[in-house]
């Protein structure tokens, strides 16, 4: 904001710079004071409340937290693995379904219908019901070749639900790429598939990165739903701990793990977005 110092800067400009510095300082001071007042006030209200002692013992007991931490941490590793495996499968399912839905080929009509039914059904069904149905229903079929490991049943349930969401996000991205981009690709002699792969899909994915991240953060949290079919992940361990201590500190510890795990993903997306903006717009 300040002009380069040195010769040739007019008095008027020096005066403007000085005013801008004063204004920036006073604005920063206002922001700091108001933040302290609001947060401090909230803290006082909570700490002065009549039930605070009991709440602290139930939710924020340091001793309980230390005791449960190693178990939750170990169990959370399962959440991470569930998430990572499901995420890859979801991307594969979603890209396939999204492309099937946008390809203008009449020969694909039955498959397209199937893709529409899939997205409608799995976006409409609560994830917890799908987890129940897959987790208990598939093993009950007793069919040869169907997975019996809870891990894979859980991954399949999450993939089915999130694949439908992510497919629709990607489809919106693909449709948002201007038709002239298709024309330019085809005009270079690229086939439909090549144009999709090298020109349309990369632009589509860039545009929908923020909503895509939303879905993946949500997926990270929903790995906790798999506790209901008996997977011993972080929430399940916290639950067992709550049953032992008759307090909820274990849940708070588990919640912290989930929060901390989503932050790197958010920062990574921010970084990627800014980088592509810089590169492509020369900002």
């Amino acid at each position, binding site marked *: 904001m300040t002009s380069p110092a040195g010769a040739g800067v007019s008095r008027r400009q020096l005066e403007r710079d000085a005013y801008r510095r004063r204004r920036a300082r006073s604005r920063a001071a206002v922001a700091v004071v108001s933040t302290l007042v609001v947060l401090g006030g909230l803290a006082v209200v909570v700490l002065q409340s009549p039930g605070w002692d009991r709440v602290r013992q139930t939710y924020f007991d340091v001793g309980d937290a230390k005791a449960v931490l190693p178990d939750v941490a170990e169990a959370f590793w399962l959440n991470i693995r569930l998430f990572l495996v499901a995420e890859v499968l979801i991307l594969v399912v979603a890209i396939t379904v999204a492309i099937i839905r946008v390809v203008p080929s009449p020969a694909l009509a039955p498959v397209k219908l199937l893709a529409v039914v899939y997205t409608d059904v799995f976006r409409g069904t609560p994830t917890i019901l799908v987890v129940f149905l897959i987790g208990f229903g598939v093993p009950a079929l007793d069919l040869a070749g169907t997975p019996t490991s809870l891990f894979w049943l859980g991954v399949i349930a999450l993939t089915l639900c999130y694949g439908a969401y992510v497919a629709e996000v990607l489809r919106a991205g693909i449709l948002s790429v201007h038709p*002239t*981009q298709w*024309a*330019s*690709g*085809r*005009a*270079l*002699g*690229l*086939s439909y598939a*090549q144009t999709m792969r*090298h*020109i349309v899909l*990369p*632009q589509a994915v*860039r545009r929908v990165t923020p909503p895509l991240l939303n879905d993946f953060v949500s997926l990270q949290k929903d790995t906790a739903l798999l506790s209901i079919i008996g997977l011993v992940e972080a929430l399940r361990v916290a639950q067992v701990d709550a049953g032992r201590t008759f307090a909820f500190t274990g849940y708070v510890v588990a919640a912290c793990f989930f929060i901390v795990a989503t932050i790197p993903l958010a920062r990574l997306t921010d970084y990627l977005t800014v980088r*592509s903006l810089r*590169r*492509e*717009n*020369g900002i």
Partner: protein
Amino acid sequence: MTEGGTGVLRADAVRKSFGDHEVLKGVSLEIAEGEVVCLIGASGSGKSTLLRCLNLLEQVDDGDIWFDGREITDPRVDVDAVRRDIGIVFQAYNLFPHLSVEQNIVLGPVRSRGESRETARARAHTLLERIGLADRAGAYPDAMSGGQQQRVALVRAIAMQPRLLLLDEITSALDPMLVGEVLDVIRDLRTEGMTIVMATHEMTFAREVSDRIVFMADGRIEESGPPEQIFTAPRSPRTAEFLARHLP
């Protein structure tokens, strides 16, 4: 050519409608090897649609188009192979915004022609040098001026080494300061013997650069002939009227 003539391309009674609106009402045109043909005419006269039909971006409703001795309006023809040999540049440049200048130019030759990346990259750099943009190979389109983008779009088309180049009002979106640098590239191409069909509103340039002027009106070719004749002694009154309004 199978049915007489030595042209690169021949269109025969081509018709095209969008909904109820008939944009091309039977257009016939022959382009000889190395010829530079300018399509002139009011907006909506069918120039762009004709160009888009010629490289099969639009499907004709009737009539035939022959390219290099083959009828390319035949649905059994491999359209991708045809388009490799007919380049087109659009009014709005349409560069790929997620790819650098070099990647924009190399994509077609590598993916569509199956050239090696090194060959394609070497040619891209030679071409960029010729248009004075060698130092921008790593830049992204949105960081460049319109004139620079359009020159890159020209190079992207030329890098495919097409037999025929279609230019669709490629200077219309540029401000007058930038038009000159794009037209210079076309002058160069003409000197090298590139066959070019261009729709344009740049009358002075059309007169200077073309071997033949084709004046279109209402989806038909109203008149066609050498530039001197068209600009000084048009036969059709409609041509005369159009030129009176568009000549500086």
